[in-house]
């Protein structure tokens, strides 16, 4: 009575084939990541040492370390966040909690989504036009980090807005019904319950910003500097551009050097992402609904 018919067998066969197809696709997806990481570690690891991280490049960048570039990347990312995080979170709070649902709000939302899709080289040109030339910052850390900030802004806004909207509407209603203002509601209930998502978005954004090359290339990152920047109006080296330079622009670079730079860059990104995930897990554990 409950035995398989030929139709059942045929259906089973088909579904097994599809399962295999999806499995293979998934493996194909993982494979490149594994290969890239293996290659980086195998070929870059010999370059890594404390000296590599803490020394200046030597002999026309064919030897020595990456200290100015490492520090430069940290500067650029930190300053970019200093601009984009407060601005992005404020804008997201307005859009999610205050803005009326009308055509203007919809246009603003659309603009933000489109801003996220603008290629980074276009952001670079905008940065040159606006910050380097118009505001007269010159090619400098300030101009480069502002350009990065503009580029990261839409992602910060979207991540924040999504975290805010994940807070159940019932909490807001409860507050309003008790006579709380919107700001009291946001400050006491909405923000504390969405902060984990906001921070996760921000940290993920950091890791992306750290690897960007195009936006900083024309706005503040230098080919080679024998000294550290002294103010935000100076140029700086950066890991991503340094990698490009030692990999393609300088003759006679030992093979392991560019791989070493790449490994450090990827290492920073991975550590950031791991922190972000760890953080989210921790805060989610504390979540109360």
């Amino acid at each position, binding site marked *: 009575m409950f035995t398989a018919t030929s139709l059942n067998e045929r259906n089973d066969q088909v579904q097994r084939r599809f399962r295999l197809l999806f499995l293979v696709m998934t493996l194909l997806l993982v494979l490149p990541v594994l290969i890239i990481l293996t290659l980086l570690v195998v070929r870059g690891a010999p370059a890594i040492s404390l000296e590599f991280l803490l020394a200046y490049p030597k002999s026309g960048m064919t030897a020595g370390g990456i200290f100015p570039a490492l520090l430069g990347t940290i500067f650029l990312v930190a300053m970019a966040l200093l601009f984009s995080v407060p601005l992005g979170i404020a804008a997201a709070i307005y859009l999610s909690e205050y803005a009326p649902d009308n055509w203007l709000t919809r246009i603003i939302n659309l603009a933000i989504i489109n801003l996220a899709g603008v290629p980074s080289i276009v952001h670079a040109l905008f940065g040159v036009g606006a910050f380097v030339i118009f505001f007269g910052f010159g090619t400098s850390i300030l101009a480069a980090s502002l350009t990065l900030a503009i580029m990261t802004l839409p992602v910060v806004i979207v991540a924040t807005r999504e975290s805010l909207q994940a807070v159940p509407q019932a909490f807001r209603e409860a507050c309003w019904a*008790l*006579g709380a203002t919107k700001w009291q509601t946001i400050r006491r209930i909405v923000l504390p319950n969405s902060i984990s998502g906001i921070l996760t978005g921000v940290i993920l954004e950091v890791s992306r910003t750290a690897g960007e090359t195009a936006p900083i290339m024309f706005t503040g990152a230098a080919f080679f500097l024998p000294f550290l920047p002294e103010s935000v109006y100076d140029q700086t080296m950066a890991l991503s551009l340094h990698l490009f330079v030692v990999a393609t622009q300088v003759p006679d670079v030992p093979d392991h050097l560019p791989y070493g730079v790449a490994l450090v860059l990827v290492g920073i990104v991975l550590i950031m992402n791991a922190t972000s995930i760890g953080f989210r897990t921790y805060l989610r554990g504390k979540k109360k609904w």
Partner: protein
Amino acid sequence: MVASSISVRTQKLNLWYGTFQALFDVDLEIKQGIITSLIGPSGCGKSTLLRCMNRINERLGYVRTEGRVDIDGQNIYAEEIELAQLRKQVGMVFQRPNPLPISIRDNVLFGTRIHTPKADKLSKEQEEEVLEGALREVLLWDNVKDRLDDTATRLSLEEQQKLCIARLLPLKPSVILMDEPCSALDPKATEAVEELIWQMRGTYTIVLVTHNMAQARRASDECVFMLMGKMIEHTETADLFVTPKDSRTADYIEGRYG
């Protein structure tokens, strides 16, 4: 308690959601200190009417209200009305218990804290007093007195709903609006919350929206039957269920539609 004085009075109350008219010329007088239930089929406007009484409808943005609603003799749709003050005076309990995701203590004290200027901040002892008073009044104190710092969202639904009532009390409301307060609860919890509501009778004017005929019948003094945005009948509960004046009321309470 002055049994005959009027606590909530609506006059020619009309309300539109966009172009859809949800309330038609509602004239209603709700007496002070008793429980009045609003009944009627889904979409009849009973929740909308309730939500006019603390003006929480307005957050939707596309709501237009005409006419007046007087609470304790004051038109709450007048220019000079401050919503924060109105909502202190007119508390609301929602269909799904919605305690805030903070501790039991902070839930009960939330209202007091947001309505007290920094300079007059209550001392720890005063806060404890307010807290105990409110939780005792809703018969929750003995259950939760040892875990006041636990998160409120971990309580059972019955306890959550009682807490949602308790957090209104420190603000000393005169009217409490309840929007199907038991519909998310099981029968036992429903009984407990109903009992609590009955005990609060006299101290507060309670307006109760309910889907549940039996609940309206056993837990309210007066009953308002609504249909398609209009108020059809408003009498003492006993009369409404035994000798309804309007045939539509009779049809509804006998379960011919709904």
